[in-house]
C-alpha cells in the first residue's frame, strides 16, 4: 500500500489521483501505524511551512516521517520541510537534507510558476528523463543546492529541484502536475 500523509496542506487530492492513475493501491492517512507499515510514503503539500510544521509536531508526525525506512517522497512543501531550516516563518525543519530554504529575491516574478528545465539530473528517480523535458513548479521559497542535490533548476538563481538522502527523495516540482514526464518520475519512485 502506498500511503500519502494527510495534514493541513493543499494539493493532496492531486497526488492521490496521480498514484491511482498509475494503478497503485493508495491511501491518504495520518494514522501513524499505517504510515510506518506502508510500502512507500508520499509527503506532498502546498502551503505555509510554519503552520504545517506546528500541525505535524502536534501529531508527532515529524518524528514518524524522520524515522521512516521505506522509500519516501517529499513534494514541494514536503521537500522544504525535509531540509534543515526555512526562512518561511523562520521554521526549524526535519533536517533530513542539509539544505537551507530561502525566499526568492524579488528580482523577477515570484512565485516561480510554470514549466522549467532540470539540470545535473542523477538518480533512479529520473529514469527515462530527457534533456529537454520540463516539470511544473510553483513556489516562492527554494532549497539551496547541497551535497544531496540530484537535480537542479535555474530561476533567478540555481536551486535544488530534487534531493535524495538514503531512502528519502524529494522534488520541488510537482510530478503529479507535470504531465507524462511527471507521471514517469512518480512511476520511477513507485517502482524503487
Amino acid at each position, binding site marked *: 500500500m502506498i500511503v500519502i500523509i494527510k495534514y493541513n496542506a493543499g494539493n493532496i487530492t492531486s497526488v492521490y489521483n496521480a498514484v491511482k492513475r498509475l494503478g497503485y493501491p493508495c491511501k491518504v492517512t495520518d494514522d501513524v501505524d499505517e504510515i510506518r507499515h506502508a510500502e512507500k510514503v508520499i509527503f506532498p503539500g502546498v502551503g505555509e511551512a510554519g503552520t504545517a510544521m506546528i500541525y505535524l509536531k502536534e501529531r508527532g508526525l515529524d518524528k514518524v516521517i524522520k524515522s521512516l525506512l521505506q522509500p519516501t517522497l517529499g513534494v514541494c512543501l514536503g521537500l522544504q520541510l525535509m531540509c534543515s531550516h526555512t526562512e518561511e516563518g523562520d521554521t526549524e525543519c526535519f533536517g533530513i537534507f542539509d539544505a537551507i530554504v530561502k525566499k526568492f529575491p*524579488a528580482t523577477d*516574478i515570484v512565485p516561480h510558476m510554470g514549466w*522549467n528545465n532540470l539540470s545535473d539530473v542523477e538518480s533512479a528517480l529520473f529514469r527515462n528523463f530527457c534533456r529537454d523535458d520540463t516539470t511544473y513548479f*510553483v513556489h516562492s521559497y527554494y532549497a539551496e543546492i547541497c551535497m544531496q542535490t540530484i537535480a537542479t533548476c535555474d530561476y533567478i538563481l540555481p536551486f535544488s529541484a530534487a534531493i535524495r538522502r538514503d531512502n528519502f527523495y524529494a522534488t520541488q516540482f510537482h510530478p503529479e*502536475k507535470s*504531465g507524462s514526464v511527471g507521471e514517469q518520475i512518480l512511476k520511477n519512485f513507485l517502482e524503487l
Partner: protein
Amino acid sequence: MLKKRIIPCLDIKDGRTVKGINFVELRDAGDAVELARRYVLEGADELVFLDITATVENRKTLTELVRRVAEEINIPFTVGGGISSLEDAQAIIRAGADKVSLNTSAVDHPELLTEIASQFGSQCVVLAIDTKLVDGEWMVFVHGGRTPTPLRTIDWAREGEKRGAGEILLTSMNNDGTRDGFAIDITRSVSDAVNIPVIASGGAGTMAHFVEVFRQTRASAALAASIFHFGEIPIPTLKQYLKEQNIPIR
C-alpha cells in the same frame, strides 16, 4: 529556462463548454472533461475552467465537474465563476483544483483574497480582472463584464497582489472575441506594475498575436478559448511556431 504558458480556457455552462462573443452570445463547444483531456494530449500547459453563468444566476461552480477533471488530467487547472466565500473556495480546492479564480467577489470582498491565501497559499489564488477602456482609462468591470466599478485596473491589480493574489488573469473586454490581438498596453502596464505572474486574455486570433504579447509585455502566460475549441489554431502548431520565434515554450 521558465517557459511561457499556453492556457486554453473552457467556459462552462451546465457542465459543457461554450464560448461567448463579447460575453453575450453563447455557442456550444462540447463536453468539458473530453475537451480537457484533448488539450492535455495536445500540450496545453495549464487549463482554466470558468463557470460563466455562476455569478449571473447565483449558482455555485459544479464541484462534481472539478472532481472528474482532477481525476482525469495531470496538469494544473484553475476554476472560477461564482466563488464568493472561503467555503466555496475550499470545496473547489478539496475537489482537486489547483487554483481558484475570483472576480466579482474579490471586488465586493477584497479580504477574501487574503483569507484563501492564508489558508491555501497565494499560489492558488488567481485574481481575474475584466477590464475595459472608458474615456481613455482602463477600468475594472464585474458581473461578467456587465457592471462598471470605480476601480482603475492598475490600482486593483496592485491591491490584489498586496492582499494575497498569486496570479492575475487579465481579460480585455475591448479585445475579447474580436480576434484582433491581445490588449498590449494594459497587459504591459499591469505586468510591469505587479511582481506576480500575469495571464493575458482576450483577443487572440493568430499565432503572431501570442508572439506579440510575449515580446512586448512581461505576461507569463496567454489564454484563449475559441481558437482552440474549434481547432482553428491547434496547440501543437502554435507551440512549434512560438519556439521558432525563440519564445521559451515547453
